[in-house]
């Protein structure tokens, strides 16, 4: 009797598990579909796009849309493709990530191991910086950049990204350094090491995981930024997201969806690559940023 019951439930179990897999795979297909459509579309020519459907395969693999997106498509009045803006993004992202990560590391080190009166309060105040809608600071920041003479420059964008990225990087490093025992710092101080020596010789060498998480997080955030890019960049200093948006919304003659899609993939490629290569750290950053931010 009990045996039968067992066999029945295990049969039911099997059905349920199959359903589970079907469900999960169907969802995976849904998540993948837009990317596949983008890829397929980017490889078709305009005629194929007009006659075929989203998922119809291209007759022949044709990279002309890609080369046009990279170096010939018009973004607004210029027709140099995405290439210059892709470079702009790197010009913004690399210094901004480096500076904000370094500042975050030092801030986190101070806040967790060199507390002074008000440092905890300041940390709480800084946390708010992770949350504010940036619309609140757009206007004053635009004025400030103008005064500093770096409006519409990549330098200006680097500054903006550093200022509003430091809250997150500080949070990441602080949470990580909190788990380093204070006795380690005390021992080093007694050994005669000072503030920077301890940081450089003892703290930094054990910080690799959090540096990776932070760099990936900042890289993704800044690369994908659109708001600051559109508000504070000039014609030739636009980051890739702004250029992509312009490209898509520029209509000279017919709409070339294949070029749009190729450009979109180009704009997404660096962060996708990071995600594929270091997904573990990416997720860790997301959840760390989420749980306390």
């Amino acid at each position: 009797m009990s045996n039968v019951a067992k066999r029945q439930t295990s049969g039911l179990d099997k059905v349920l598990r199959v359903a589970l897999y079907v469900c999960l795979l169907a969802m995976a297909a849904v998540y993948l579909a837009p990317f596949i459509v983008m890829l397929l579309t980017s490889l078709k020519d305009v005629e194929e796009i007009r006659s075929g459907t989203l998922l119809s395969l291209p007759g022949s693999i044709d990279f002309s849309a890609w080369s046009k997106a990279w170096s010939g498509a018009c973004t607004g009045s210029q027709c140099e493709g995405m290439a210059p803006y892709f470079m702009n993004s790197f010009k913004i992202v690399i210094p901004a990530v480096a500076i904000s990560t370094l500042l975050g590391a030092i801030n986190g080190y101070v806040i967790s191991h060199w507390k002074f009166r008000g440092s905890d309060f300041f940390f709480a105040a800084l946390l708010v910086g992770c949350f504010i809608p940036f619309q609140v600071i757009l206007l004053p920041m635009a004025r400030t950049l103008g005064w500093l003479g770096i409006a519409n420059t990549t330098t200006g964008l680097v500054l903006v990204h550093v200022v509003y990225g430091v809250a997150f990087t500080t949070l990441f490093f602080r949470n990580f350094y909190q788990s380093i025992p204070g006795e380690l710092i005390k021992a080093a101080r007694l050994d005669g090491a000072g503030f920077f020596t301890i940081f450089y010789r003892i703290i930094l060498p054990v910080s690799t995981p959090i540096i990776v998480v932070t760099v990936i997080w900042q890289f993704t955030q800044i690369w994908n930024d659109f708001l600051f890019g559109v508000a504070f960049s000039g014609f030739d200093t636009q980051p890739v997201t702004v250029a992509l948006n312009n490209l898509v919304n520029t209509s000279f003659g017919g709409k070339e969806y294949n070029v749009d899609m190729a450009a979109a993939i180009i704009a997404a490629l660096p962060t996708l690559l990071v995600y594929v290569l270091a997904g573990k750290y990416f997720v860790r950053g997301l959840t760390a940023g989420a749980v306390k931010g």
Partner: protein
Amino acid sequence: MANLVIENVKKRYGQTEILKGINISIEAGEFLILVGPSGCGKSTLMNSIAGLEDVSEGRILIDNNDVTYSSPKDRDIAMVFQSYALYPNMTVAQNISFGLEMRKVPKDEREAEVQRVADMLQIGHLLKRKPAQLSGGQRQRVAMGRALARRPKMYLFDEPLSNLDAKLRVEMRTEIKKLHQKLGTTIVYVTHDQIEAMTLADRIAVMKDGEVQQLGTPQEIYDNPTNLFVAGFMGSPAMNFVPAKVVEQNGAFALELQASKPTVVPFPDQESLKPYLGKEILLGLRPEMITEPQPHKEGAEFVVTADIDVEVTEPMGADTMVLTRISEAEVNCRCNPVYPTKAGETIAMMLDTSKAVAFDKDTGERIDR
């Protein structure tokens, strides 16, 4: 080697006073042990001595120099922490030589020093490993090595052995004692272990709530505690506190207890009992002062034999602890295991009050001297 003077040191965190005026003075080469319940401020005091935390008031002198406001690295102190605090990214050799490197000692001298320390602590074969690849005992040795390498004026040990298992702890205890005898450097050492405190210390400071209750040699602390707290804190099992009524008997003051039957015991310091005639005090008796009847002590001056009711017996190997009740208080007696005792029986016990102490019931202060 250096002496250490702590003068009226106070430490406040905001409103709360953690150290409430500490006064301790020890000679060069002395081994001072700090004991006290958790949270009483031992680590805070150690950090203040090391300069890792600023004191709010008072002075600290090392080697007759006021170091109250000098930075940790200028005090020439080494500290061994409970967690060992080894630098995780450095090898054992680098850990040991880091302090020397910071003091700009030339490389060959550093290497020689590492070798010397490694030989002394027998960790030569570990020098190339990282801390994560060491066992608890090995880490402990490396932490000691790091402290030894600099040949500082003074060592601070904050519960250095409490993360080791019992056997290793005993071994390391002996080694620390040997090291101290060999180096003769001043040591301040925090522990929760009674035996460590008794065996290692030249002097013990018993702390409670940010105050030093008593500072004295281990024997003084054990035999002559200044108050109930010290008496109860040191010794394991703890001293028994028996409520006793001061009575006059044959022209002398004596103490009346309620064992199996009412019993009167004599007390050495007669003068001190005078003000308490007819009142209750607390009589402090170490467990070894209540034993099975021992023929050679029969008839000695402060020895009385009385019947007690055995509640529980706990054989410990060398002794058997007998738990009973005297004047309503739980009392531990230390008996020879061959003395036949069983729970529920009433047996004869010998009370030796020659080294007993008396406390005021209300203030907890010591009455006799």
